[in-house]
């Protein structure tokens, strides 16, 4: 597999310009791109974590986990690995 292929397959999973929420610089809101499969995907959808919704990391507990996030005026605590399933857009409109 050459380098172009590898980048291509990576993009298929990640979607262009999307990164997991914990990797996104904090201090501002991000747009949700998608929620990866995981035990909490259905719950996240119910709480409104759907593509296009704004999401923000409010704070991180001592030792890096769990994280407090804000969506639609509500705050939730979730573990870092759950937050990793939330992909957010890093730049510009999709």
């Amino acid at each position, binding site marked *: 597999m050459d380098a172009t292929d590898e980048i291509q397959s990576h993009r298929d999973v990640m979607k262009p310009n999307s990164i997991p929420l914990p990797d996104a610089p904090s201090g501002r809101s991000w747009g949700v791109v998608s929620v990866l499969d995981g*035990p*909490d995907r*259905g719950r996240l959808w119910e709480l409104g974590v759907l593509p296009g919704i704004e999401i923000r990391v409010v704070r991180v507990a001592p030792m890096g986990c769990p994280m*407090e996030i804000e969506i639609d*005026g*509500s705050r939730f605590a979730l573990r870092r690995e759950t937050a990793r399933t939330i992909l957010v857009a890093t730049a510009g409109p999709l």
Partner: protein
Amino acid sequence: MTSIALVGNPNSGKSSLFNRLTGLSQKIANYPGVTVEHHSGRLRLSSGDLEVVDLPGTYSLVGRSPDERVTSDFLAGELKGVNAPDAVCAVIDACQPGRGLFLVSQIIDMGIPVVVALNMVDEAREAGQLPDASALSLALGGIPVIPTVAVNGEGIPALSSAIAEVAKTKVSSSVASLWRTLRVADAFGNDPAETARRHAWVRSKLGQAKWRPTGGHRASSDRIDKWLLHPALGFVLFLIIMGGIFQAVFSLAAPLQDGVEMAISALGSACGTWLSPGLARDIVTQAVFPGVGAVVVFLPQIVILFLLLGILEDTGYMTRAAFIVDRPLRMIGLSGRAFIPLMSSFACAVPGIMATRVIEDRRERLITILIAPLMTCSARLPVYTVAIGALMPESAQFGPFGARGLVLLALYVGGALTGSLVAFVLGKTLLKGDRHAPIIEMPTYRWPDPKAVLTRMAHRAASFLRRAGTVIFGVSLLLWALSAFPRADVAPDAPASVTAAAQLHGSIAGRAGRLIEPIVAPLGFDWRIGIGVLASFAAREVFVSTMGVVYAIGEGETEVAEAQLQAAMQAAVHDGTTRPVFDIATLVALLLFYMIAPQCASTLAVIRRESGSWGWAALAFGYLTVLAFAVAWAGRHVALWFVGGN
């Protein structure tokens, strides 16, 4: 009777609303086969009474956790032996109408008649919103929407009459089948498009009602969280708050406990003077009253603990506490949710184990249940006090600290460390597997509703009396019978304490104590301690009063009796020798034994009940007993090596 189900998101003020609607006519029950409790009560109306059922808070009817499944199964009439409700009152937090309406959309799809209580409208107003209930009602196609403030009773009469009105409409008989069809549909809760459609529906309804929610009033909560969830200071404040609760529980409860004990023993001797000497009097004064006393003596601590924890829960701090301790607890395979159960277990493992119901993950819940008895409960304190008192004089110092206090602290820490170690090992072996930590809402801080806090405290205390009280009382009676028969022949003019000692020696309990002596001998225990160990199955503190009887001092926890008991224990020798029973090594073994041993029948009964099988109770009993023996034996030998001797 027509029944109404209260359904709503967690933190929507549902329980306060329930209290307002039903007053004091509440009862708590478990549905067959589920450990999730439900509260039901009566709503009194001029047109007749309605039954109101308060269901566990939920975000959707998909049923993602055991609690949530009870709610959706109840609504669908799928709980065994329970009829589906005739109507639903959906409680919506006026600051978070979107999430509430998401749930309402699913209830509408079920086809059950529904009334919406738009709760906490006062907070929405404070946050600068004026939700228009009639516009929302219109947008929802005529479903009644009543603005309420459960905490002060605003809107409750209007809500009651709306409920009465909607309860008259007939439920379509196809609710359950419609629901089953919906549920087996792959899309329900499994498809982002389906969920997105519901969210879009909610947005359009809010749009039609010209309502643009801005969320709750976060500013003041954020100011508080800046301190309480501060990366470094937050943990310190957490320790101070929890330490404060401990201090309050013990210092406020102590005088109350003394009062309760005095009152019970005064009542007992008063009854004793009315009855003529004989078996009946013995049963009343030696079995019934001490049995009742053994139960109610725990009440002050438990009530105070429930009160303080209830206040903290309702302010919203306990969610923050779980947030702070999640990572540390994760190192031993638990999560922030295990914190309240383990904390409560320092007062008594029974309410602690009952509190594990908030833990959604079954494996994590079982681990928490299995280690809860290792947290030092208050019933161990009298045992520790007597044994530490015999071990060292009050003046003993270790550096600048009193040595007695340090030993006590070491026992608390030792229990907690043993529990952590056991949790870690269980999580890697018997109960290994992926553990799922739920997403927890962080509500805004609120002033607790005193009525809601007090009602919950009363329910929890009643629940403790039912679960633990009956077992403690029953075992107390049984142990009295075992120590009272067969009747001993003693000279009628012998002092009462000598008679009692002779009676115990010859009784079934005394024989059982001598029978197990070879088993406990490696720990340095003689048959008398053996009886004490067996007797403490009623409650650990019974060990002390049993020692009082064994050494013919008579019962009582007055300072004189305690000093006499200590003197008697220090003078005690193994039968037929001059070797003291309570040498340093034996006392060390006794303390370590009580730090771990599951000497508490009510804890074992509650473990069976909450885990749903005797197997887990047997496992708890087995591992704790073996561990207690091993640690006590090792402690004895380390002590022997230090002080010399055999």
